[in-house]
């Protein structure tokens, strides 16, 4: 009987001790959409190092595809149950800040060198004078091309937009002479996703124009001019229509397109390339005098967590922003990090095109964002791509598409003139 009681007591103690030790550990919830990408190893290493530096604090790192991730974030913010560490595509930062669910970071950030040492787009992550995020990556763009295809066609790497168009025309071929194009000179994203809007902005910023300036939408004539140029690529048959990012990349990396525009993460796709492309791909500076700049993704802190947790989250953000981890970011991911000057010789040797993206990301450029209306970015890009996809499908002329876009934007976005 005594033995039974003792055994029962021991068992009970074992059960009770479990939640007690678990309760002593603080778990920070950190969902992201980048674990499956080339950024994954860096995030994992950072989280592990944070755990080692902060005994009793564990970061629960989870992954979801980008769309699901941002839908989950919105739902959790709405429910008052946000994750502790918020990682998001930068275009959501202003919207979430505007919705009152993010914590301003200035009281911590002002005690560091971040604002002085970061890429210029860091300054854009502020609403009404408060900073709501830390830029993890600034957009750096390049023209990814298939060098053997260009050589075979006797085409030089384009350095201006007219040269790009001419090169795309010469590189578009019917290789098996069946009457259909099977090698496209260019693969352009003209889909209804936000990346379709980015295509517009490559060309519009590329013409040295912002889409919004001083709360005024650019002239319809200027929007028409950019749309008409994109339409020329479509009409000339140098790009398939309605491509989204995945098919666009697939077309290039499987050897069916000679050129496409992509960000600093492009080299990460090379390992999945067809044999004919694996050794022949190169990246050149985008042949536009100005680039569609701006932040790609950011770390932030939710408003609805305890002060104690906020301190722990800031420690994590600060660690991610430290020179050492920024240096590792470049080395591990091959992307230029937010902290300027973090790319060292080792990273440049490992990633041959990193210097090009670094130059692109830190170069003063036009912004792909509607300045002053960043919180309406998604609505903005949606109205734009509605007009652009209708034009690409032949339903609207560039002029009609531009007028539809301007009317839609001014109707939907308060304060836009």
């Amino acid at each position, binding site marked *: 009987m005594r033995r039974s009681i003792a055994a029962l007591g021991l068992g009970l103690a074992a059960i009770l001790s479990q939640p007690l030790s678990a309760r002593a550990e603080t778990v920070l919830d950190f969902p992201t959409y980048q674990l499956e990408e080339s950024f994954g190893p860096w995030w994992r290493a950072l989280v592990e190092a944070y755990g080692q530096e902060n005994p009793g604090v564990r970061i629960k790192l989870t992954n979801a595809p980008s*769309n699901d991730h*941002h*839908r989950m974030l*919105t739902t959790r*913010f*709405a*429910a*008052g149950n946000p994750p502790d560490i918020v990682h998001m595509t930068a275009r959501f930062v202003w*919207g*979430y800040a*505007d*919705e*009152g*669910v993010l914590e301003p970071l200035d009281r911590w950030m002002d005690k560091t060198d971040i604002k002085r040492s970061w890429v210029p787009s860091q300054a854009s992550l502020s609403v009404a004078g408060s900073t709501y995020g830390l830029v993890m990556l600034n957009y750096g763009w390049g023209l990814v091309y298939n060098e053997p295809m260009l050589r075979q066609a006797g085409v030089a790497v384009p350095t201006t937009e007219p040269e790009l168009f001419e090169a795309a025309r010469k590189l578009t071929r019917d290789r098996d002479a069946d*009457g*259909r194009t099977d090698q496209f000179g260019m693969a352009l994203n003209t*889909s*209804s*996703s936000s990346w379709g809007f980015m295509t517009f902005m490559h060309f519009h910023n590329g013409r040295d124009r912002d889409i919004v300036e001083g709360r005024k939408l650019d002239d319809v004539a200027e929007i028409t001019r950019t749309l008409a140029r994109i339409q020329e690529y479509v009409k000339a048959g140098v790009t*398939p*229509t*309605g*491509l989204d990012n995945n*098919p666009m990349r*697939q*077309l290039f990396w*499987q050897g*069916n397109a000679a050129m496409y525009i992509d960000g600093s993460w492009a080299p990460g796709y090379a390992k999945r390339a067809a044999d004919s492309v694996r050794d022949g791909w190169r990246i050149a500076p985008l042949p536009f005098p100005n680039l569609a700049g701006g932040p790609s993704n950011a770390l932030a802190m939710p*408003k*609805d967590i305890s002060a104690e947790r906020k301190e722990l989250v800031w420690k994590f953000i600060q660690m991610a922003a430290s020179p050492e981890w920024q240096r590792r970011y470049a080395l591990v991911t091959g992307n230029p990090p937010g902290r300027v000057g973090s790319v060292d010789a080792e990273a440049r040797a490992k990633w041959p095109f990193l210097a090009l993206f670094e130059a692109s990301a830190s170069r003063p450029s036009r912004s792909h964002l509607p300045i002053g209306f960043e919180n*309406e970015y*998604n*609505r903005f890009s*949606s109205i734009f*791509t*509605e*007009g652009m*996809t*209708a034009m*690409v*499908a032949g*339903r609207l002329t560039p002029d009609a598409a531009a007028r539809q876009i301007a009317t*839609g934007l001014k109707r939907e976005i308060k304060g836009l003139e």
Partner: protein
Amino acid sequence: MASLPARSEALPRRRPRLGRQARTRLLLTALMLPAILCTAVLVAWPIAKLVQISFYELRLAELMRPITKPWTLANYTAATGHPGFVPSLAATAVFVFAGTAAALAIGLATALLLDLKLAGSTLFQALVVSPWSVAPAIASLIWMFLLNDQFGLVNYLLLAAGLVSAPVPFLTSPDVAIWAVTFATAWKAYPFFTIMMLAALQSIPHSQYEAAMMDGAGRIRRFTAITLPGLRGFLRVTVFLGLLSQFRNVESVLVMTGGGPARSTETLAVRVYTETFQYLSPGRGAALGVLTLVVAVATTLAFLWATRKRADI
């Protein structure tokens, strides 16, 4: 004899016993209580909250807090006054009705084939039902790749067979995309119709067919006079569920086209998603959600009313 009154006073008063029917009813109510509670918490409360949110201009951070703002119809005005509202109603009509009709047609055809119990019917049954086991998002991805105009199998086959001279822009043409997406969802949905129709077919007494054959009725006559009337009740329930399922289907469109091109596949459900999760306008999203709910309920009630009338005739 004198002790009898004293004895009856000593006995406790017995409560009147419940009848068997009343006890059964009580038991059934008790058994249903968890389901009623679940429905109230998981369905009624969210709908009530949706309706409430639709009447206020709230920020995300305010959704779960006590509301102090005045109520407004602004969300409804903005939702219905948007030039995309009527086109999205039209897209919803095509998506829901054509999608359910296609799923019903394929489901009925495959059920009739399975009911013939031909050789290899077990394998055929497994094949027919297999789309049901695929997750909706995966099914949409499969169709997105199959219908791709550059490397899709469907275009490859059409070109190889000489049926078309250029790839068909299934998902990139505003005129074609809604039909392509609708067909893809019908492919995912038809096994449900197959199973329901097969169960209905097997419940029709074989003696009815034998009697009809003895009377000289042909295949078509037997189908219209025996099979279809026998299926009517099942059809009503199955189409009702199919319509509702199609109304709330959002992932297929989002995965395949994202509502484009040129908003041609933007159904009401997709608009609810876009307003809420992309534009972060929960009030307008809720207003669209309420309108979608009203349209869905009105459509299905109209269907039930119309089919009941026919059954009475």
